[in-house]
């Protein structure tokens, strides 16, 4: 009977899949991501194998040409009035860093890269682009630029992402976050360079009094701006929070909808199609109930606090495996297997053998007992693990079992004996059957 029904299942499932585009919800949400073609690499700065900030490497990856050419192009542009430097700096600021690690660069490539940079610097000096400016202007400018570059480099990527996303995290923490002492020193050095540059610029150009006045004015203006924009900042932070919360909620909703669509709705559709076959309806409903129950209440289920990602629980515990086995038998024989497990432990070779024997016992009960329900009880004790498989079915006379039947002899008795366990079978015609399997636990 199940064998006939199976192919139908798949047909109906396929029907459902075909109808899916008409469904506005999760179909739209999940599909485009996976299907978008990815022929051209997005422009991302390289993380590994970089000289300064990985901009040239990223551009090279994007265009699909050797890095050396890109570096050369930047150098040539730099000589032309510093356009290359500016372009490099802008790309550095605006192009996100790639998340993939990338391979480290070879010594040869590194030497080539430095060579390009030195050549470029030499050419710039020769052309005198920067240094044709008066010294009082050029020196502080260079100092400021170097300082800013140092700060920016320190704050690169992970910190800046935090600045952008969490307006709440304080800037000092973000600046220094995760970098340790050397990061602190470098940031302070960079900031000092910027300040020194600005001061030198101002001192060089104007008299001391004017500087003081200007600094006061600038400071006052900044404070004023900060005070004036307080409400705006507050709103920004609040909006971010609200936005984040609603995003989490809608993701949650989409996940639930997707799960219900994949499980409950499919099963209900199947049940409608199979309504005439009571046995099949029962099988479907039971399988669905088990699945949904596990999703809601199971140890890794939706309702449970999810364990942290890093402590990935081993999926092979006795209770999980027994539940799987019972579910399998329920599905293939259209009976109900009620399992109760007391205690739990990791599976080892012996317990796997015991569960295999238990499976055989459950299957025997399902096949021969002629009942709709089988009880399975497992108890984990300090010294041993006991499993009881019980039905209230027809039972049999143990002495009258033909010698050519191997199920009980080999799969249950043999398996248990080979691993040091014991089996007791209590049965009588008409009185049901109980198979007791006890396995000593391996010394911990």
């Amino acid at each position, binding site marked *: 009977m199940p064998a006939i029904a199976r192919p139908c299942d798949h047909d109906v499932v396929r029907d459902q899949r075909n109808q899916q585009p008409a469904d506005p919800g999760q179909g739209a949400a999940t599909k485009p991501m996976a299907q978008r073609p990815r022929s051209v690499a997005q422009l991302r700065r390289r993380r590994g194998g970089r000289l300064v900030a990985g901009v040239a490497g990223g551009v090279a990856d994007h265009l699909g040409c050797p890095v050396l050419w890109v570096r050369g192009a930047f150098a040539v542009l730099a000589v032309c009035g510093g356009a290359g430097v500016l372009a490099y700096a802008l790309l550095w600021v605006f192009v996100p860093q790639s998340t993939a690690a990338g391979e480290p660069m070879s010594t040869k490539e590194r030497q080539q890269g430095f060579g390009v940079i030195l050549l470029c610097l030499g050419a710039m000096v020769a052309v005198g682009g920067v240094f044709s400016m008066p010294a009082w202007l050029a020196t502080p400018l260079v100092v400021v630029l170097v300082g800013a570059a140092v700060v920016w480099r320190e704050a690169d990527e992970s910190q800046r992402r935090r600045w952008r996303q969490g307006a709440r995290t304080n800037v000092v923490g973000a600046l220094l976050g995760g970098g340790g002492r050397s990061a602190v020193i470098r940031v302070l050095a960079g900031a000092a360079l910027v300040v020194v540059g600005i001061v030198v610029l101002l001192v060089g150009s104007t008299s001391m009094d004017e500087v003081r006045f200007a600094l006061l004015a600038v400071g006052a203006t900044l404070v004023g701006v900060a005070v004036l924009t307080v409400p705006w900042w507050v709103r920004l932070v609040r909006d971010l929070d609200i936005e984040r919360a609603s995003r989490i909620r809608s993701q949650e909703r989409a996940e639930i909808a997707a799960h219900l669509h994949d499980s409950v709705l499919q099963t209900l559709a199947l049940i409608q199609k199979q309504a005439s076959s009571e046995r099949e309806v029962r099988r479907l409903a039971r399988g669905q109930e088990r699945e949904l*129950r596990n999703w*809601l209440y199971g140890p890794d289920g939706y*309702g449970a606090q999810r364990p942290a990602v890093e402590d990935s629980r081993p999926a092979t515990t006795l209770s999980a495996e027994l539940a799987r086995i019972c579910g399998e038998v329920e599905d293939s024989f259209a009976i109900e297997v009620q399992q*109760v497990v*007391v205690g*739990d432990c990791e599976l080892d070779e012996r317990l796997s053998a015991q569960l295999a024997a238990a499976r055989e016992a459950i299957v025997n009960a399902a096949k021969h007992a002629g009942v709709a329900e089988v009880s399975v*009880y497992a*108890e984990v004790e*300090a010294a041993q693990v006991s499993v*009881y498989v019980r039905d209230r079915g027809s039972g049999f006379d143990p002495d009258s079992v033909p010698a050519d039947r191997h199920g009980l002899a080999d799969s249950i008795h043999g398996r248990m004996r080979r691993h040091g366990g014991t089996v007791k079978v209590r049965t009588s015609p008409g009185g049901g059957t109980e198979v007791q399997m006890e396995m000593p636990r391996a010394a911990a």
Partner: protein
Amino acid sequence: MTAGDATAPHPVRVFLVDDHALFRTGVRAELAAAEQVEVVGEAGSVAEAVAGIAHYQPEVVLLDVHMPDGGGAEVLRQVRPRQPEVVFLALSVSDAAEDVIAVIRGGARGYVTKTISGRELADAIVRVHGGDAVFSPRLAGFVLDAFSEGPGSAPVGDPELDLLTPREREVLRLLARGYAYKEIASELYISVKTVETHVSSVLRKTQLSNRYELSRWATDRRLV
């Protein structure tokens, strides 16, 4: 009126509490066939239940574990001080041990699952009304687990209450293995009455035990 007396002078008055109307209708239909019980009213929320139980004065309340605004435990908390004579039987679809243990500790006299047949349910109602506890195999498993003395289990408060006697343990284990009370009695060569006494004392221990928040058992277990 004596325990489990099938020829009781009047049927047991039952009140239904469940937030699903469809399920209440189903239970009513199932129980309509049984002569020993009579459904006198039903409620779909905690507030309705509290008011309804006060009004109808039922003898047994069939209580859902999972409901919005507090669930079965909240109904127990509000009704028990005022009407200590009302007996509660938890009827749940929940598999989460902490829910079930919470209701049992709140004072319910038994716990059965929603897939129970109408006849068995009527039988369970009569039994709790007679003063016994009714455990489904699943609850027996939960309780065994809560009282188990593995390494790292909860500290013992009252040693008298915090341990099950070997006999109680045996009875519970057979319950968990799917045996009916009658079968347990013949298995252990004791009377059905004795089995019921053991089960009742297990229930009492579950409710009174200081075994450090039995209800947190499931949480602890998940952390293992």
